[in-house]
């Protein structure tokens, strides 16, 4: 049933391991991102699918056919590069039609398909331009059209948005996802930008040092990271610690305040040190009041050490019992953010505490 199977792939450069034990099964039409820092093996893995690298071990099966050792031009794979890689001597039309021409499609049909592609990327008017006459965003859209024009079985995108400005990046991201869903094309997307991977993908493969750290939906990766590396790479983490008030209990003492966890710490003795992690956006800051809060939430007093206004989001560095924490809130036009030195009350849901464990 799986459309693309990467089976136990391994790639060495000399004696350095680039990719090790890479397993992935993708269904038809799925959008999977390979996410990781540079050197994590994500690009090497994609290049093995494209045929530009030969795996030292393992197989690649596409639609039931073993393509592990097929030349790149014999695989039906479309590729989009970070540097656009448009042919500078060809017009937009000829670029898009390049793969069709090679497949010996009749000229009239090529013209029709190119028109269709130009419509898809909303550049119908610009067919006669040369790549040098286009903006970066336009060039990358042409590169996308060129890659999908010959109806490849798999579309590979290698950090396609890294060279673009932030605003264009976000717009083109949405466009790529829309086109991918409209065509139902099986897609692998390589990126080091966690927001990009999260926002685009059906599933994300988080990689580090040539190994797969976790495979899952963006929501699962973010909210139930399998390893500390994943948790830290896809978001910011605050680490807090406290002592268990009672053997096997669910309450920690942090400074002079009690904090409840979502689960009981079975088998842990009273006074043992327990740490847990909180995402900055899982914490809500309030002005300090004497009013009783929501009993379902935990409250901690904190001193504000710094406030950074980012626009939509206001980021505070606060101090809780000598632990530095990062807290994110949305900008509120009716209430300016607290000042450095203010004391605030932090509220968080026990269920937001991640990777609770003994120190």
């Amino acid at each position, binding site marked *: 049933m799986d459309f693309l199977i990467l089976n136990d792939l391994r790639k060495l450069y000399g004696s350095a391991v680039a990719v090790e034990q890479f397993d992935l099964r993708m269904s038809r039409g799925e959008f999977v991102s390979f996410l990781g820092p540079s050197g994590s093996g994500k690009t090497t893995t994609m290049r093995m699918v494209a045929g530009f690298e030969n795996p030292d071990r393992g197989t690649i099966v596409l639609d039931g056919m073993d393509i592990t050792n097929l030349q790149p*031009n014999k695989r039906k*794979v479309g590729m989009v590069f970070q540097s656009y890689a448009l042919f500078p001597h060809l017009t937009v039309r000829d670029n898009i039609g390049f793969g069709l021409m090679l497949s010996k499609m009749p000229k009239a049909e090529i013209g029709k398909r190119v028109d269709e592609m130009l419509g898809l990327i909303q550049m119908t008017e610009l067919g006669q331009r040369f790549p040098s006459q286009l903006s970066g965003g336009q060039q990358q859209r042409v590169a996308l059209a060129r890659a999908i024009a010959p109806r490849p079985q798999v579309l590979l995108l290698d950090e396609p948005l890294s060279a673009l400005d932030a605003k264009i990046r976000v717009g083109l991201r949405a466009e790529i996802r829309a086109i991918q869903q409209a065509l139902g094309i099986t897609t692998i997307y390589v990126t080091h930008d966690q927001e990009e991977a999260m926002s685009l993908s059906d599933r994300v493969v988080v990689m580090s040092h040539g190994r797969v750290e976790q495979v899952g939906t963006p929501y699962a990766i973010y909210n139930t990271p399998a390893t500390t590396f994943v948790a830290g790479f896809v978001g910011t983490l605050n680490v807090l610690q406290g002592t268990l008030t009672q053997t096997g209990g669910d309450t920690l003492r942090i400074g002079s305040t009690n904090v409840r966890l979502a689960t009981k710490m079975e088998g842990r003795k009273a006074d043992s040190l327990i740490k847990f992690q909180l995402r900055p956006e899982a914490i809500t800051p309030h002005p300090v009041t004497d009013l009783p809060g929501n009993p379902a939430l935990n409250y901690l007093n904190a001193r504000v050490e710094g406030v950074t206004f980012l626009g939509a989001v206001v980021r505070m560095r606060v101090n809780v019992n000598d632990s530095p924490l990062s807290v994110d809130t949305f900008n509120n036009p009716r209430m300016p953010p607290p000042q450095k030195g203010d004391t605030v009350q932090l509220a968080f849901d026990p269920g937001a505490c991640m990777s609770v464990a003994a120190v």
Partner: protein
Amino acid sequence: MSSKNNPITYWVAVAIVTICALYLIVPLLTQFDFSLRMKRDVLSLDAYVSVFTTKPNAVDPPKFYTSLLFSAGMAVLTIAFSLLVIVPTTFWVNYRLPKFKPVMDLFSVMPFAIPGIVLAFGYLRTYTSPPLALTNTDAGTAFLLVGGYTVGVMPYVYRSVDTGLRAIDIRTLTEAARSLGAGWATVIWKVIMPNLRAAVISASLITFAVAVGEYTLANFLFPDERAFGSYIAAIGRNRIFEPAALTIISYLLVWACVLAVQRIGRGSTQTQTAVIR
């Protein structure tokens, strides 16, 4: 600090103009003036007429044409030969064997540094006796001359092609073409060559100019003064006004080549800018 008011700009301009004048323009003008004075006390084109019509004997066509034709033929062969060798090699080394690049760079500079005279002796010694007695036949000697020229212009052709290749990110373009279904021949002819057009034409024109005007190697391999360079030298020794006329003609030919190179070079700059943008 607008450039108009800057004194450095002014002096640089003066320096350039002076150098060019002393070493390129004044000699040209002097030669031109002299070439018009074959007839005493009047300006005339007689020297040019003489160049175009002087025959070695009653039967043969004027030497000017035969020698120019001969050297032009050698030049064209040199262009074909050097491009055939250098373009695919340089592409492949850049694309697939970057570790081999320093070796290529080394070989490409070497011929530039070897005096033509040394090359000439080496060839004469090696290829005048069996097993490779190339100089026994005109074709063999010509082959040797073309080979020598190919080696001689290699630094320029290699650098030109190499610069052209580097300007177009061959790695990604090649991979893009491959993933679209292109075989190696398609990659070279439909993707690489069109983008090297400027570099290749520029290298060809330079090669042409060098090969047509070359004296040392041509004179040693063809002592019968068959080549254009030898012909110019012979005229220089035996005539008074014709050399000046010849110089002017050469200048004009060369200028035509250089301007052509320049015009094409400008196109290439645009392409390069485009790729970078």
